[in-house]
């Protein structure tokens, strides 16, 4: 199996010598092509820090992160920018759609930043919109759309560039339960049908249960890992997640 992401002994410290906070310690794992991986942990566990390091928004203190064979901790300046826009796709909790632009323009923006021609942009935007069922809202502005539609537009923007890895930070955080379910089914679709590799950070067990593998983080370290069986139902996977969550203790209880 082709390895898309390899996190190798990553450390991240904040603060100075006197007052050191270890946000991440000796974190190592791999994600293969076509996987849908969830990262779970309580607030403050370091999961968002990890995502930021992978997405090159933040820099690691030690260790290496390889995306598709490239060591992103070594990238600088323009190479870093190019890497970010060509290899990664982002889906954010608060959608991060530009309120001044239509859905079409929001999705197209990711492609025009890459310097694609308008003909190709049109083709790809329409294709992805059809697949995600947002063809009819393409000419609408974000304020005219429902939360679920906005999140799907955001997903479309993340995958329209065919990134190696899609990073999602609490994608269901701002959605009601129906919209959340719709979105997660979309993720499954992206993962199954478009074979997108997805790395999703969440503290919500229900959301996590859509993933095929879950990495639990506690106090900056990997606590354990859960893999969903080939034939296992989402319900039983959900129960296993809840078990680990109760083992982890702490604030995650609010989920149930």
């Amino acid at each position: 199996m082709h390895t898309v992401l390899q996190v190798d002994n990553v450390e991240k410290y904040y603060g100075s010598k006197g007052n050191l906070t270890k946000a991440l310690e000796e974190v190592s794992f791999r994600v293969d092509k076509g996987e849908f991986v969830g990262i779970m942990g309580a607030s403050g566990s370091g999961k968002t820090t990890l995502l930021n390091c992978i997405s090159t928004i933040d820099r690691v203190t030690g260790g290496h992160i390889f995306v598709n064979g490239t060591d992103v901790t070594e990238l600088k300046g323009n190479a870093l920018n190019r890497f970010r826009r060509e290899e990664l796709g982002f889906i954010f909790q608060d959608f991060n759609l530009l309120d001044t632009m239509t859905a079409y323009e929001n999705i197209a923006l990711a492609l025009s930043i890459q310097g694609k021609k308008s003909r190709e942009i049109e083709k790809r935007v329409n294709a992805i919109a059809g697949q995600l069922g947002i063809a009819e809202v393409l000419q609408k502005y974000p304020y005219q759309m429902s939360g679920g539609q906005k999140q799907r537009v955001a997903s479309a923007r993340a995958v329209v560039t065919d990134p190696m890895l899609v990073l999602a930070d609490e994608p269901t955080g701002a959605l009601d339960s129906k919209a959340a379910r719709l979105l997660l089914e979309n993720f499954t679709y992206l993962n199954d049908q478009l074979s997108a590799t997805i790395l999703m950070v969440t503290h919500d067990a229900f959301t996590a249960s859509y993933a095929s593998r879950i990495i639990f983080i506690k106090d900056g370290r990997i606590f354990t890992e859960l893999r969903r069986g080939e034939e296992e139902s989402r319900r039983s996977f959900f129960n296993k997640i809840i078990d680990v969550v109760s083992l982890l203790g702490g604030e995650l209880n609010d989920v149930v």
Partner: protein
Amino acid sequence: MLFKLSVKNMKKSMKDYAIYFLTLILGVAIFYVFNALDGQKAMLGLSQSGYQMVDLMVQMISLVSGLVAFILGFLIVYANNFLIKRRKKEFGVYMMLGMGKGGISGILFGETILIGILSLGVGLLLGVFASQFMSILVAKLFEADVTAYTFTISAAAVQKTILNFCIMYVIVLVFNAFSISRYKLIDLFQAGQKGEKQTMKNTGLAVVVFLLAAGILGYAYYQVAYRPETVTMERAALLIAMGCVGTFLVFWSLSGFLLKLLQRFKGVYHRNLNAFVLRQLSSNINTAVFSMTVICLLLFATICAFCSGMSMNNSLRNALREMTPADICVQKLMSLSAEGDFSEAQRENGEKTVLEALADMGFAEENLREYVEISIYSTKELTFGAMLGAYEEQLRAQFPFVNMNTTEDIVGVSEYNKVAALYGTETYTLAEDEYLILCDFSSMANMRNLALSGGEQITIGAHTLKPRFAECQEGYLVMSASHINAGIVVVPDAVIEAELGGTLSLAEHFLAGNYAAETKEEKQTIENILLAVPKETAKEYVGFDAETKISIYESATGLAVIITFVVLYLGIIFLISGAALLALKALSESTDSKARYEILQKVGADEKMVHRALLEQLLIFFLLPLLVAVVHSLFGMRFVRFILSVFNQGDMLASVGVTAAILLVIYGGYFFATYYGSRRIIEEK
């Protein structure tokens, strides 16, 4: 406690609104500098007429200062109102913590007082130093010697500045208290959460409105620029209103129109961040239609004021040389009419020649090295209207203000040639049945040329004369700083000889001559004899009027300087007010759009792309009002030229160049300050 908060807020916002504070300080300084001119004259060794000119200038400036105070007041109230709106969330927190509206008003009161004291203090200090340079400039322009340089502070100007700005700040306080009293806590909180609601305009409607606006402006342009003679006071007001409405509609619809247009070119629209820039721009413009209109009109006023002021200045100076060929010219009414209410002495003096009158006043013939004295005749038969012949009715309707019943000045050709020879201007010969008209006042000449080109014949008693030339000739008798000779009819000598005592009567005597002196000082000594003549004495000689080269020079340079000063004063205030408004608007938009720029970076745009997008967006935002103002000016200037046609504005190019340079420096300065300020805003975490 509240005051502490005010001080903290000030410090915090200093950085963000440095442009606003700077503009306030500049405004105060400029206000002081121009109003302090009065105090500067004490130290200058000015001549008598120079003094009068400075006095006139001070009067003009104090008049204009009213307008300036209004503009600055508008800027302050507007900017303040707008800064308050941006702090709704902060006020919400205060109210949440239990502070009453009185408390919030108290904070704002403290801030306004602080800003007021700071801007007044720094501005006055700056103004006092700047005005020292100003007095040197004034001295140079009035060709005065700085007799004793003293560091002067004009108490009157300080008082006036403080008073004016205090009034403005009090108005601000009232406005603040009013807007605070209307706020509700829930609105204050929601204001922080969501930015201004996006009002996306129907692009189809925008296109229609844009075309409508273009139509309105087009009509106003046409009327003003190509049919200026039909513009009366009422029509002018209407056209100005149309211009304002048209400008407003242009900005209202412009972004929608541009979007619609550019979206058709998908290749351009979706290249790099163009779509983002355009959308951002259109959202900026949509929330700033009113301020953009105001800014555009201010820029328009600035351009027109600068251009016309400077070209008037230039033409005044240029005209001087060719318009004052002799040292002195004097005219005087002769053989006063029986109906007039004149005293015995006046009637007696009415029979004297100019030279005799001068001798009476103590100005001996020996003072003139050379001179010519000629007679000017008139007849009731030959009025301005009669000269126009068939065109009289038409022109009378077109120019209701022109008096068609004035009698024409008639001069014999050989007499005129004597004066022309002295002046060094062109001389003429006429056949027995010919006449010609001397006129260099262009709007009058235009009317006269209609009749002349039609070969209009005139009758003086038994003589009928036809025009020698198809248009008016250059030439004049009375010297003046500008071309204002409305018309002199030159006829053959034989006509005068034959008709004198019959139809023609002697109306005036005219004398032109040069002083018997070589140096400037000697000439001034001779001139002083005339200046010493008491006004009462001169009154005994009806219509006695002397123009001298020296007095024309002094008043013309004075006039030129006054125009330059007033124009600079108004123009700079307009410019900084407009630019500051625009800069404030753009900066606050950048604060609002911070999240959008962050998204851009998250989606993968690098720093360079984001900076370029910001630069492009701000550049267009600043250029649009300027562009519309320039188009307005292209047509507006034609009208200004028409009104000021007295001042033969020859070379506009130089004035346009200077205007462009001033605009570039001030407006460009504000633009760059805004760009770097915005960059700092979107980059800070």
